């Protein structure tokens, strides 16, 4: 009897540590953040319900829309990351010599702590003697205020995000490229496709699911960005910032927990949009594959 009870309990015992951590620090806060968002709450006051007041204040304030607009602009990192990481993956997959070293080198930014990356680029983007302005000066372009002026501050932070991110997504594309059957490429060549044709007709469709994945994941990461703005362009006014730095300032600078939570919920809804897009795309991707498999099965059945 006790043996049966332990057998029944076993899976739950294995799950216990994870359940305690995720329950206390993820699921419970998920519920609480909604409650906070409908209340006035500070570090020193117990939450007091205010209905939709926080949401009304946020959606009616220029501050939030400005940050949201900056976040929308920040999404431009996504196409740049896709092009850069796919190109890097294709160079690696082409089988050039030293590609293992190449892979390792391109992974250095991924390992670099964001604060370090931010300072490295702060140095390069230095307004007076930074390498980038010096190089621009050499070709006759006036120095740019990378660290203090809009929209350059956003461009500077985005550069750090792209730099730190592309090596990781490159690994996703390397795996995808390695799974493209050689026979398909050879067949395309036999059918008279050029290099670009092979890329467009064989490689691109094969890595398309990975492109969608990277698109969604890096978009969500871009909406969550904080470190890059906080350190690279340290000290710029709030108008230069995106949504998460605004949440941080609202919660821990001004102590408006209710407002910050309502902003968090809005951020979640934006992120949810991308997650659903991912789900929908991966489902629609599944279908043609299933149909093809069903078709192949039907063909096989026909020959018997």
């Amino acid at each position, binding site marked *: 009897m006790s043996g049966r009870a332990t057998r029944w309990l076993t899976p739950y015992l294995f799950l216990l540590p994870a359940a305690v951590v995720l329950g206390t620090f993820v699921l419970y806060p*998920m519920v609480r953040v909604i409650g906070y968002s409908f209340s006035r709450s500070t570090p020193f006051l117990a939450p007091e319900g205010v209905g939709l007041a926080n949401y009304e204040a946020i959606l009616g304030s220029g501050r939030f829309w400005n940050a949201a607009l900056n976040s929308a602009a920040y999404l431009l990192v996504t196409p740049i990351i896709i092009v850069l990481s796919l190109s890097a993956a294709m160079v690696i997959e082409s089988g050039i010599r030293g590609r293992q070293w190449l892979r390792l080198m391109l992974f250095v930014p991924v390992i670099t702590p964001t604060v370090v990356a931010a300072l490295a680029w702060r140095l390069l983007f230095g307004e007076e003697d930074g390498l980038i302005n010096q190089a621009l000066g050499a070709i006759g372009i006036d120095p740019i205020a990378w660290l203090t002026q809009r929209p350059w501050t956003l461009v500077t932070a985005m550069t750090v995000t792209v730099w730190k991110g592309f090596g990781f997504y490159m690994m996703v594309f390397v795996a995808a490229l390695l799974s493209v059957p050689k026979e398909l490429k050879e067949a395309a060549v036999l059918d008279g496709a050029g290099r670009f044709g092979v890329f467009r007709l064989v490689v691109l469709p094969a890595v398309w699911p990975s492109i969608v994945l990277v698109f969604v994941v890096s978009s969500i990461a871009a909406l969550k960005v904080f470190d890059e703005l906080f350190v690279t362009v340290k000290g710029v006014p709030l108008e230069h910032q995106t949504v998460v730095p605004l949440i941080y300032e609202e919660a821990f600078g001004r102590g408006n927990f209710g407002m910050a939570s309502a902003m968090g919920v809005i951020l979640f809804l934006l992120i949810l949009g991308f997650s659903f897009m991912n789900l929908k795309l991966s489902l629609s991707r599944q279908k043609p594959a299933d149909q093809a498999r069903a078709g192949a099965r039907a063909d096989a059945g026909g020959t018997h």
Partner: protein
Amino acid sequence: MLERRPIWLNAWLYLIAGLLVAVAVGPALWLALTAVQPAGTDLLRSSGDGSGKTLSIGFTWDHIARAWTDGKLAGPMLNSVLVSFARAVLNVLVAALAAYPLARMSFAARNVVFTLILATMMVPEQVTIVPMFTTVVGLGMYDTLVALIVPLAVSAFGIFLCRQAMMAVPKELEEAASIDGASPLAIWWHVMLPSIRPTLATLFAFSLIGAWSELLWPLVVLQTKSGFTLPVAVNELVGQFAASARVYYAAAVLALVPILVAFMLLQRFLKGGMFDGAVKG
């Protein structure tokens, strides 16, 4: 076989590879060179005839030493090592524990539990940061390293990764151990964990890198300077040494070196030999 690549295409590939390496390694290298450049001298000096600039690399320990002593980085370094290592170990163990029943046992609540775990993946900590903070304060963890370790001791992604890997382990291994009378915990330890070692190593490495780099959460829950982790401490130095930037660049280099070394040591254990042969030769 595909036709051989023409020379122009090969040259193009090496050119792009070279550019990518320059972009990837250049900024960190420039940072390091600047950090050890003696005060009062520039890396790029105008050449005498005014025709352009020349690179002149110098070396001094001064800024590194000042960052370490005046910047009081010994404490943060120790804290970062402790937090990152604890986080990586816990992330692997807790995720692998949870993944085992999800991959290999049938029990009533399995689908509900798995769905709940996946749901936590959709809500990033930036969204719930306020209630996470009040929860940590309520539990008396504020301004302690525990607040950096326990709340992030496991991730849904880690559980998912381990579950996928465990589902691919042959059933026979498990059955053989079970017939020999091994308990579920023994099977987990002696059969499951060794079978998914590359996945565990990958999860370990990524948890380590993530914890080492983390800024927002430590910024929120830490207050006492001696309890800072490296990213928070380095960020502080940017304000403190505003007048001598090379000191905080040196601090940044000190924050970079340990994780680079750790990754070099770890990389050959990573999944699918992500970087096979790169360092070993």
